[in-house]
């Protein structure tokens, strides 16, 4: 073989130098390949690790914190909830259907690796200009890909978000979150246990799929797509489903020590990670790996990213039993290696040793490579867009027209076109599914309890201020859970950023982490899992800092859950929380001014948390008939959504003419509905707790909104709200950009 340059695998010259030095010899090509994956940003978190350490990771309920395949939090009833988010941005940009589908498959297997049964998916999506052909292609491909995988595998997609911003044109974001349930005693981790244990590879046979996928996720999307041809993988949700059932059945066998899914990097990364947690070595024999494509080289086998595979570490003696379960389900399973004392990752093909690497160098050596200070990084040439190319002028002049127009904004408009393509009701837990409330409410069968989950991000906020925006996003997610009466338990975060080798990006990254940290600390909840996606940038454009927060909470009593829509005529409707909000970073500002603006002042986290806890208590006392978090589009849109979801109208007698009151955005505000009978009690309670409470209007049987005397029928509002997404795909010629 001609001498090849390891730089072609994505390794940096200083990294290559450290490897050569520490190895004391020239690694062979298989070894370079294994290094390149383990040391890729995607697998090693080499750039982000020092920052991620700032996040609060522990707390009373935390059973498993970051560092495992998913975080796990105790629900207090013998069950625990496992959850994590993952990005599949780069593959989805070139093949939206399969890119998104395999992303869903990957995050489901992360949850499965904890021994948990996956019970729900959420998806957070970002696209560029919705009026272009490319965005339609991406949007429809991504949504059908997520639906294809999630629906087929029988895990409901119960919520999520879709937002548009000019800088996502070349770099769409596809973040998927999965939630699983596990009995505390059935919890598993990705460990190898003692030397002598055996490693089983189970699932689909290995093919030449996605070799170097992780490296691909760690570079900019620049240049002709032709070069990316080999890197897309095709997933098979049918095998994914078999893998869930077979694995959960196999885990009943005593003697299974640990397991891990094969994700980015395949066999080159998963077994060493398991060994690290147990302080052991590993010896694999690639000749035992079941192949889909005959005659694969050792290099290809060890680097393959074929989907729907797991590695299990088992005590000797139980392997036949485990293999039998997988085979019963029609899957491949084979003992491919064993746990050894020697701290090395040794890979054989039959008798021949094809790689022999010291575990500590492989896993942690990358941390020894000097990373220059932020100041030494390039400033980069790609920029972000801060003006809206689709600004609407002039702004509609009446409240009624303004509301009808705002409801059509792609970020506010109904996402029905998306979520009706997802099976959100399978597994019969979805008390509140997509489109109905602020979060998804998932019944814990056999109890009155529910797990409530949401995903939130807001690129406008983080563009105005990465730190302050991140704070607000975390609080916003908590407010969504509280609207359903759920107490927030924990966070998973997906950090989508541009190129970290450019100073502005790394600075934003640091500020966002600080914001996430401060907000999580204020709420008193941990960040138990997460994912980082860098290099979301093209030659000219970089995405805005886009942290996406997944949050999970517990609702104690489903019977006390407030509705999401107005419940009864005659009830009084209030704003619960501060009347002050920001036009800076709001949809209103972006849509009609075409700019992002500024925040007036930082949010007082402690105050939001206090108001939030007071609302939880009011819900617990049974006072709140319906509740909805005020988010994009402000109070005006929140009220309209509560009316549209049901069949009752609302009369607001006199409207404060200040647009900031009706259209401003800030977390810590809800619309709540209270029966006249409880009104005094609640007003007193709010006063005692220092919760600002402002009366807005009265629910009426007549299906109209009445705004300072102007009335609009709910049907007209619904029509405006529902029209936007179907409109993307109807006729209107799009530029083919």
């Amino acid at each position, binding site marked *: 073989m001609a001498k090849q340059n390891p730089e072609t695998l994505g390794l940096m010259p200083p990294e290559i130098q450290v490897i050569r030095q520490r190895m004391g010899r020239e690694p062979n090509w298989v070894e370079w390949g294994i290094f390149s994956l383990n040391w890729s940003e995607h697998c090693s978190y080499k750039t982000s690790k020092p920052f991620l350490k700032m996040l609060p990771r522990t707390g009373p309920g935390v059973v498993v914190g970051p560092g495992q395949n998913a975080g796990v939090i105790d629900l207090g009833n013998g069950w625990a909830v496992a959850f994590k988010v993952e990005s599949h941005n780069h593959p989805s940009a*070139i*093949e939206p259907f*399969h890119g998104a589908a395999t992303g869903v498959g990957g995050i489901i297997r992360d949850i499965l690796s904890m021994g948990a049964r996956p019970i729900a998916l959420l998806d957070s999506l970002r696209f560029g200009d919705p009026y272009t052909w490319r965005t339609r292609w991406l949007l429809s491909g991504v949504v059908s890909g997520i639906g294809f995988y999630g629906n087929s595998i029988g895990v409901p997609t119960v919520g999520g978000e879709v937002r548009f911003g000019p800088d996502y044109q070349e770099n769409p974001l596809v973040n998927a979150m999965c939630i699983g349930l596990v009995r505390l005693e059935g919890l598993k981790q990705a460990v190898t246990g003692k030397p002598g244990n055996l490693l089983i590879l189970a699932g689909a046979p290995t*093919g*030449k*799929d996605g070799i170097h996928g992780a490296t691909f996720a760690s570079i900019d999307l620049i240049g002709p*797509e*032709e070069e*990316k*041809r*080999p890197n*897309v*993988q*095709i*997933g*098979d949700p*049918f*095998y994914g489903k078999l893998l869930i059932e077979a694995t959960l059945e196999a885990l009943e066998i005593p003697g299974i020590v640990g397991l891990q899914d094969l994700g980015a990097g395949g066999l080159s990364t998963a077994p060493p990670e398991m060994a690290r947690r147990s302080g052991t070595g590993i010896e694999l024999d690639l000749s035992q790996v079941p192949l*889909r*494509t005959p005659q694969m080289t050792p290099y290809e086998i060890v680097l393959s990213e*074929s*989907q729907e595979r797991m590695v299990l570490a088992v005590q000797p003696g139980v392997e036949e039993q485990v293999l039998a379960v997988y085979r019963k389900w*029609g899957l491949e399973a084979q003992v491919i290696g064993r746990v050894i004392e020697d701290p090395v990752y040794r890979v054989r093909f039959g008798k021949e040793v094809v790689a022999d690497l010291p575990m500590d160098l492989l896993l942690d050596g990358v941390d020894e490579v000097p990373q220059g200070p932020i100041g030494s990084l390039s400033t980069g040439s790609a920029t972000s867009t801060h003006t809206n190319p689709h600004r609407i002028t002039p702004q509609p002049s009446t409240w009624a027209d303004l509301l009808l127009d705002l409801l059509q904004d792609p970020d506010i408009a109904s996402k029905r076109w998306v979520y009706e393509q997802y099976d959100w009701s399978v597994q019969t837990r979805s008390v509140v599914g997509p489109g109905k409330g602020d979060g998804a409410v998932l019944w814990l069968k056999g109890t009155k309890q529910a797990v409530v989950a949401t995903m939130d991000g807001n690129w406008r906020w983080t563009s105005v201020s990465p730190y302050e925006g991140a704070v607000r996003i975390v609080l916003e997610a908590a407010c969504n859970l509280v609207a359903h009466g759920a107490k927030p338990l924990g966070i998973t975060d997906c950090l989508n950023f541009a190129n970290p080798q450019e100073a502005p990006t790394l600075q934003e990254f640091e500020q966002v982490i600080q914001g996430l940290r401060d907000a999580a600390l204020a709420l008193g909840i941990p960040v138990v899992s997460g994912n980082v996606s860098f290099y979301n940038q093209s030659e000219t454009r970089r995405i805005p800092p886009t942290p996406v927060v997944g949050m999970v909470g517990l609702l104690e009593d489903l019977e006390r859950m407030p509705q999401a829509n107005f419940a009864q005529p005659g009830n009084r409707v209030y704003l619960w929380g501060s009347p002050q909000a920001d036009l800076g970073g709001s949809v209103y500002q972006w849509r009609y001014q075409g700019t992002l603006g500024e925040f007036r002042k930082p949010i007082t986290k402690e105050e939001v948390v206090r108001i939030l806890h007071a609302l939880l208590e009011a819900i617990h006392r049974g006072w709140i008939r319906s509740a909805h978090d005020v988010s994009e589009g402000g109070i005006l849109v929140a009220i309209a959504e509560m009316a549209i979801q049901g069949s009752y109208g609302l009369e607001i007698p006199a409207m404060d003419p200040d647009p900031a009151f009706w259209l401003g955005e800030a977390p810590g505000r809800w619309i709540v509905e209270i029966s006249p009978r409880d009104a005094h009690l609640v007003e007193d309670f709010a006063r005692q707790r220092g919760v600002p409470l402002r009366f807005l209007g009265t629910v009426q049987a007549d299906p109209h909104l009445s705004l300072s005397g102007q009335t609009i029928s709910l049907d007209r509002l619904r029509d405006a709200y529902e029209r936007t997404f179907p409109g993307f795909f109807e006729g209107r010629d799009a530029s*083919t950009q």
Partner: protein
Amino acid sequence: MPVYHAELLVYLRPDLLDPQGRAVKHALNTLGFHEVEDVRMGKAIRIRLQAENDSQARDRLKEMAEKLLTNPVIEDYRILSLEQEP
């Protein structure tokens, strides 16, 4: 303008996993068709279009294939037939 009838075939690239083909092959084998060694599933697309002549029709079909009908990242295609309507 003359009317043409065309037929295009689109398959996943041969090195990529074809989950459908895999499932169909297994099913055929279990149904007793043990002689089946491999199955690949693709799309057949019949298109009726107007064009000035044969070569224009072919050019447009190629354009369609590249812009919409296939994703070259994962798929290969071929124009199986192109005939003018009598």
